[in-house]
């Protein structure tokens, strides 16, 4: 059965789009049929990180408005045949997306894919609530930094009240993905620790993605980091997170790019 996952955070610039591309690719690399959907209407970027910016013809808004059929708008990845992208439109009309339109598209995508991964825009307004509306699972992307943690707390509140699942009295599954983590600075007390963030947000951990040069390189190339450099710390972190999403029991580590060190085992399992 298909799973709809929203990648959300409240705060901008924490790594939602990066994570959508990397997790989408990681799941596809594991043989799953995946579509990544860009909900950031007006500020689309997922096409760039996927290296598909020159192949966009139709977009999510065109489909919801009946101007294009879904198969016309879907872009198949050049490297992974079971990975697809549904781009956002560049319209400045904030109300271009309607709830009914989104509901229809998500229902159709569910019938074709194993995973529907929705890249949320920043903020707590309509765009963000529409992106989470029909999700089964939410990944809250958090940086170990005060404003990001606070915004994650707000988003967790919204997930528990504004999603269809919550309104129907069901529980929406929530996980934390901590990104841009710097183990050295956390060890010296300059950066919130993983335990601090987990204790404050009281949400189970899906993975820890370290701050990594490879992420910038991947975005320069337009290739998700799990494809551009599978051996890098960020790629291994996203691969492990994808495996946990698929229900595999993978030990929690903080992958490191320093060759001499083994990945530090983090004494905790994903819940």
């Amino acid at each position, binding site marked *: 059965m298909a799973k709809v996952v929203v990648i959300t955070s409240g705060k901008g610039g924490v790594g939602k789009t990066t994570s959508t591309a990397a997790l989408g690719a990681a799941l596809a690399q594991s043989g799953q049929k995946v579509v990544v959907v860009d909900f950031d209407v007006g500020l689309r970027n997922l096409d760039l990180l996927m290296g598909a910016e020159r192949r966009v013809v139709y977009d999510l808004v065109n489909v919801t408005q009946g101007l294009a059929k879904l198969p016309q708008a879907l872009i198949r990845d050049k490297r992974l045949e079971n990975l697809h992208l549904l781009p956002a439109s560049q319209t400045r009309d904030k109300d271009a997306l309607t709830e009914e339109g989104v509901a229809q598209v998500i229902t159709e995508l569910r019938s074709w894919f194993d995973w529907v991964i929705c890249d949320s825009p920043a903020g707590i307004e309509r765009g963000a609530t529409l992106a989470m509306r029909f999700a089964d699972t939410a990944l809250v992307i958090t940086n170990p*930094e*005060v404003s990001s*943690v*606070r915004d994650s*707390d*707000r988003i967790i*509140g919204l997930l528990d009240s504004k999603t269809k699942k919550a309104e129907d009295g069901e529980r929406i599954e929530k996980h934390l993905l901590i990104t841009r983590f710097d183990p050295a600075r*956390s060890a*010296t*007390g*300059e*950066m*919130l*620790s993983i335990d*601090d963030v987990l204790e*404050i947000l009281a949400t189970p951990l899906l993975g820890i993605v370290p701050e990594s040069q490879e992420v910038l390189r991947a975005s320069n190339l337009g290739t998700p980091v799990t494809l551009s450099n599978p051996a890098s710390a960020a790629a291994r972190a996203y691969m492990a997170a994808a495996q946990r999403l698929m229900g595999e029991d993978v030990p929690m580590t903080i992958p490191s790019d320093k060759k001499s060190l083994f990945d530090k085992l983090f004494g905790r399992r994903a819940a």
Partner: protein
Amino acid sequence: MSLFGLFGQRRSAPVARERLQILLAHERSLCGQNDLLSILREEILGVIAKHVKVERDNVVVKMDRGDNVSLLEIDVEIPNSASPLLAMTA
């Protein structure tokens, strides 16, 4: 680097942690309170609407939180034309 430099000044994470814990405890309780207020507002509107016609925007429900007691303030503006009963006494 001096020990003070290492442990006294650079350890800002514990401060962040404490500030967040206090702030989020406050914001989470506010969120619950906002919900209580909107529930009260809807029910009060319902009761009033049974008897007189009022504009939604003319019903204001506020909560002033004190240390020991809180004050619930309900402000309802009713045009005299909205109810024959009011018009008679006016």
